[in-house]
Protein backbone atom coordinates (compact mmCIF):
# COMPACT_ATOMS: atom_id res chain seq x y z
CA UNK A 1 0.00 0.00 0.00
CA UNK A 2 1.08 3.61 -0.34
CA UNK A 3 0.67 6.83 1.52
CA UNK A 4 2.36 10.15 1.63
CA UNK A 5 5.53 9.08 3.33
CA UNK A 6 6.04 5.57 1.98
CA UNK A 7 8.60 4.81 -0.66
CA UNK A 8 7.50 3.49 -4.02
CA UNK A 9 6.03 -0.03 -3.73
CA UNK A 10 6.34 -2.65 -6.45
CA UNK A 11 4.07 -5.42 -7.74
CA UNK A 12 4.68 -7.89 -10.56
CA UNK A 13 1.87 -10.02 -11.94
CA UNK A 14 0.95 -12.06 -14.99
CA UNK A 15 -1.28 -10.65 -17.70
CA UNK A 16 -4.89 -11.57 -17.09
CA UNK A 17 -4.63 -11.53 -13.31
CA UNK A 18 -6.56 -9.09 -11.15
CA UNK A 19 -4.73 -6.68 -8.86
CA UNK A 20 -5.62 -4.36 -6.01
CA UNK A 21 -3.50 -1.43 -4.87
CA UNK A 22 -4.07 0.28 -1.56
CA UNK A 23 -3.59 3.80 -0.33
CA UNK A 24 -3.78 5.25 3.17
CA UNK A 25 -3.93 8.94 3.90
CA UNK A 26 -3.39 10.94 7.03
CA UNK A 27 -5.74 13.89 6.83
CA UNK A 28 -9.47 14.26 6.29
CA UNK A 29 -10.06 14.21 2.56
CA UNK A 30 -12.97 15.32 0.41
CA UNK A 31 -11.76 13.47 -2.66
CA UNK A 32 -9.35 10.72 -3.67
CA UNK A 33 -8.04 10.60 -7.20
CA UNK A 34 -6.08 7.76 -8.76
CA UNK A 35 -3.50 8.51 -11.42
CA UNK A 36 -1.38 6.33 -13.67
CA UNK A 37 2.04 7.35 -14.91
CA UNK A 38 3.75 5.60 -17.78
CA UNK A 39 7.45 5.93 -18.45
CA UNK A 40 8.41 9.36 -19.76
CA UNK A 41 4.93 10.81 -19.32
CA UNK A 42 3.12 12.84 -16.72
CA UNK A 43 0.46 11.23 -14.51
CA UNK A 44 -2.98 10.77 -16.08
CA UNK A 45 -6.14 10.56 -14.02
CA UNK A 46 -7.95 7.23 -13.96
CA UNK A 47 -10.76 7.74 -11.51
CA UNK A 48 -12.01 10.21 -8.91
CA UNK A 49 -14.00 9.17 -5.85
CA UNK A 50 -15.57 11.64 -3.44
CA UNK A 51 -15.86 11.31 0.33
CA UNK A 52 -19.60 10.59 0.10
CA UNK A 53 -19.01 7.66 -2.29
CA UNK A 54 -17.86 4.21 -1.25
CA UNK A 55 -17.18 2.80 -4.70
CA UNK A 56 -16.62 4.02 -8.26
CA UNK A 57 -16.20 1.96 -11.38
CA UNK A 58 -14.80 2.77 -14.78
CA UNK A 59 -14.33 -0.07 -17.25
CA UNK A 60 -11.88 -2.54 -15.71
CA UNK A 61 -11.16 -0.19 -12.82
CA UNK A 62 -12.85 -0.10 -9.45
CA UNK A 63 -11.97 2.37 -6.71
CA UNK A 64 -13.17 2.21 -3.13
CA UNK A 65 -13.00 4.73 -0.35
CA UNK A 66 -13.31 4.10 3.39
CA UNK A 67 -13.21 7.41 5.21
CA UNK A 68 -13.40 5.75 8.64
CA UNK A 69 -10.08 3.99 8.07
CA UNK A 70 -8.72 6.76 5.81
CA UNK A 71 -7.95 4.33 3.03
CA UNK A 72 -8.72 3.83 -0.63
CA UNK A 73 -8.08 1.03 -3.09
CA UNK A 74 -7.84 0.69 -6.83
CA UNK A 75 -8.55 -2.66 -8.45
CA UNK A 76 -7.87 -3.62 -12.04
CA UNK A 77 -9.48 -6.73 -13.43
CA UNK A 78 -8.06 -8.73 -16.32
CA UNK A 79 -4.78 -6.84 -16.42
CA UNK A 80 -2.99 -6.20 -19.70
CA UNK A 81 0.69 -5.65 -20.35
CA UNK A 82 -0.23 -2.06 -21.22
CA UNK A 83 -1.36 -1.55 -17.61
CA UNK A 84 2.33 -1.56 -16.64
CA UNK A 85 2.87 1.82 -14.98
CA UNK A 86 3.19 3.56 -11.64
CA UNK A 87 -0.13 4.16 -9.91
CA UNK A 88 -0.63 7.03 -7.48
CA UNK A 89 -3.42 7.98 -5.17
CA UNK A 90 -3.87 11.69 -4.52
CA UNK A 91 -5.92 13.33 -1.81
CA UNK A 92 -7.35 16.77 -1.48
CA UNK A 93 -9.42 18.57 1.09
CA UNK A 94 -11.33 21.80 1.14
CA UNK A 95 -8.97 23.71 3.42
CA UNK A 96 -6.08 23.05 1.05
CA UNK A 97 -7.76 24.59 -1.96
CA UNK A 98 -6.93 22.80 -5.18
CA UNK A 99 -3.70 21.26 -3.91
CA UNK A 100 -3.48 17.47 -4.23
CA UNK A 101 -1.09 15.42 -2.11
CA UNK A 102 0.23 12.34 -3.88
CA UNK A 103 1.12 9.03 -2.28
CA UNK A 104 4.44 7.28 -2.87
CA UNK A 105 3.03 5.20 -5.69
CA UNK A 106 2.86 1.53 -6.66
CA UNK A 107 4.97 0.34 -9.57
CA UNK A 108 2.92 -2.33 -11.33
CA UNK A 109 4.57 -4.63 -13.85
CA UNK A 110 2.26 -6.86 -15.88
CA UNK A 111 4.18 -9.65 -17.59
CA UNK A 112 2.80 -10.74 -20.98
Amino acid sequence: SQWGEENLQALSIQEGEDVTMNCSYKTYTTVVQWYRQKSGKGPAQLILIRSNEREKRSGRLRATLDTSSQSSSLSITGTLATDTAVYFCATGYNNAGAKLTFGGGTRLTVRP
Partner: protein
Amino acid sequence: NAGVIQTPRHKVTGKGQEATLWCEPISGHSAVFWYRQTIVQGLEFLTYFRNQAPIDDSGMPKERFSAQMPNQSHSTLKIQSTQPQDSAVYLCASSSTGSSAETLYFGSGTRLTVL
Protein backbone atom coordinates in the same frame (compact mmCIF):
# COMPACT_ATOMS: atom_id res chain seq x y z
CA ASN B 1 -6.19 19.85 -27.92
CA ALA B 2 -2.44 19.45 -27.48
CA GLY B 3 -2.61 19.05 -23.75
CA VAL B 4 -0.22 20.73 -21.33
CA ILE B 5 3.03 21.57 -23.06
CA GLN B 6 6.29 21.78 -21.15
CA THR B 7 9.59 22.95 -22.57
CA PRO B 8 12.33 21.99 -22.68
CA ARG B 9 11.91 18.24 -22.17
CA HIS B 10 15.45 17.98 -20.85
CA LYS B 11 17.75 20.60 -19.39
CA VAL B 12 21.29 20.20 -18.14
CA THR B 13 22.86 22.99 -16.11
CA GLY B 14 26.08 23.44 -14.24
CA LYS B 15 26.03 24.05 -10.53
CA GLY B 16 25.29 27.71 -9.86
CA GLN B 17 23.59 28.39 -13.18
CA GLU B 18 20.01 29.48 -13.64
CA ALA B 19 17.26 27.31 -15.10
CA THR B 20 13.91 28.48 -16.46
CA LEU B 21 11.20 25.96 -17.16
CA TRP B 22 8.16 26.76 -19.28
CA CYS B 23 4.59 25.53 -19.19
CA GLU B 24 1.67 26.16 -21.51
CA PRO B 25 -1.60 25.03 -19.88
CA ILE B 26 -4.62 23.70 -21.70
CA SER B 27 -6.49 26.57 -23.33
CA GLY B 28 -9.38 27.71 -21.17
CA HIS B 29 -8.02 26.23 -17.94
CA SER B 30 -7.71 28.77 -15.18
CA ALA B 31 -5.51 26.87 -12.71
CA VAL B 32 -1.86 25.91 -13.19
CA PHE B 33 0.16 23.73 -10.85
CA TRP B 34 3.83 22.88 -10.49
CA TYR B 35 5.06 19.61 -8.98
CA ARG B 36 8.53 18.13 -8.59
CA GLN B 37 9.17 14.40 -8.89
CA THR B 38 12.18 12.48 -7.58
CA ILE B 39 12.74 8.84 -6.73
CA VAL B 40 13.34 9.68 -3.07
CA GLN B 41 10.62 12.30 -2.43
CA GLY B 42 8.05 11.20 -4.99
CA LEU B 43 5.60 13.80 -6.33
CA GLU B 44 5.87 17.01 -4.33
CA PHE B 45 3.55 19.97 -4.70
CA LEU B 46 5.36 23.24 -5.28
CA THR B 47 2.87 25.97 -6.12
CA TYR B 48 -0.29 26.85 -8.02
CA PHE B 49 -2.02 29.77 -9.70
CA ARG B 50 -5.65 30.48 -10.34
CA ASN B 51 -6.56 33.10 -12.94
CA GLN B 52 -2.84 33.99 -13.04
CA ALA B 53 -2.79 34.89 -9.33
CA PRO B 54 -0.52 32.90 -6.98
CA ILE B 55 -2.73 30.97 -4.55
CA ASP B 56 -0.48 28.56 -2.68
CA ASP B 57 3.31 28.40 -2.78
CA SER B 58 3.69 26.31 0.37
CA GLY B 59 5.85 23.71 -1.39
CA MET B 60 8.32 26.11 -2.93
CA PRO B 61 11.81 26.19 -1.43
CA LYS B 62 12.13 29.66 0.08
CA GLU B 63 15.35 30.48 -1.65
CA ARG B 64 16.27 30.27 -5.32
CA PHE B 65 12.84 29.08 -6.58
CA SER B 66 10.24 31.38 -8.08
CA ALA B 67 7.19 30.89 -10.29
CA GLN B 68 5.26 33.33 -12.37
CA MET B 69 2.23 33.37 -14.62
CA PRO B 70 2.44 36.54 -16.68
CA ASN B 71 -0.52 35.61 -18.86
CA GLN B 72 -3.13 32.88 -19.10
CA SER B 73 -1.20 30.95 -21.72
CA HIS B 74 2.04 30.29 -19.92
CA SER B 75 3.77 29.90 -16.59
CA THR B 76 7.45 29.72 -15.73
CA LEU B 77 9.40 28.14 -12.91
CA LYS B 78 12.80 29.70 -12.36
CA ILE B 79 15.56 28.18 -10.27
CA GLN B 80 18.49 30.43 -9.51
CA SER B 81 21.95 29.12 -8.64
CA THR B 82 20.95 25.51 -9.32
CA GLN B 83 22.31 22.81 -7.02
CA PRO B 84 22.66 19.05 -7.64
CA GLN B 85 19.77 18.39 -5.25
CA ASP B 86 17.50 20.36 -7.61
CA SER B 87 17.85 17.55 -10.15
CA ALA B 88 14.36 16.19 -10.71
CA VAL B 89 11.48 16.00 -13.15
CA TYR B 90 9.40 19.17 -12.90
CA LEU B 91 5.77 18.62 -13.84
CA CYS B 92 3.24 21.25 -14.76
CA ALA B 93 -0.49 20.57 -14.67
CA SER B 94 -3.62 22.53 -15.35
CA SER B 95 -7.24 22.17 -14.34
CA SER B 96 -10.47 23.80 -15.36
CA THR B 97 -11.25 26.05 -12.40
CA GLY B 98 -8.89 25.01 -9.63
CA SER B 99 -10.61 22.60 -7.27
CA SER B 100 -9.29 19.46 -5.58
CA ALA B 101 -12.30 17.66 -7.07
CA GLU B 102 -11.13 18.30 -10.62
CA THR B 103 -8.84 16.36 -12.88
CA LEU B 104 -5.27 17.59 -13.11
CA TYR B 105 -3.92 17.36 -16.64
CA PHE B 106 -0.16 16.95 -16.53
CA GLY B 107 2.46 17.71 -19.11
CA SER B 108 5.26 15.25 -19.81
CA GLY B 109 7.63 17.18 -17.57
CA THR B 110 11.04 18.77 -17.80
CA ARG B 111 13.93 16.63 -16.59
CA LEU B 112 16.45 18.94 -14.96
CA THR B 113 19.95 17.61 -14.38
CA VAL B 114 22.39 19.76 -12.40
CA LEU B 115 25.98 18.69 -12.78
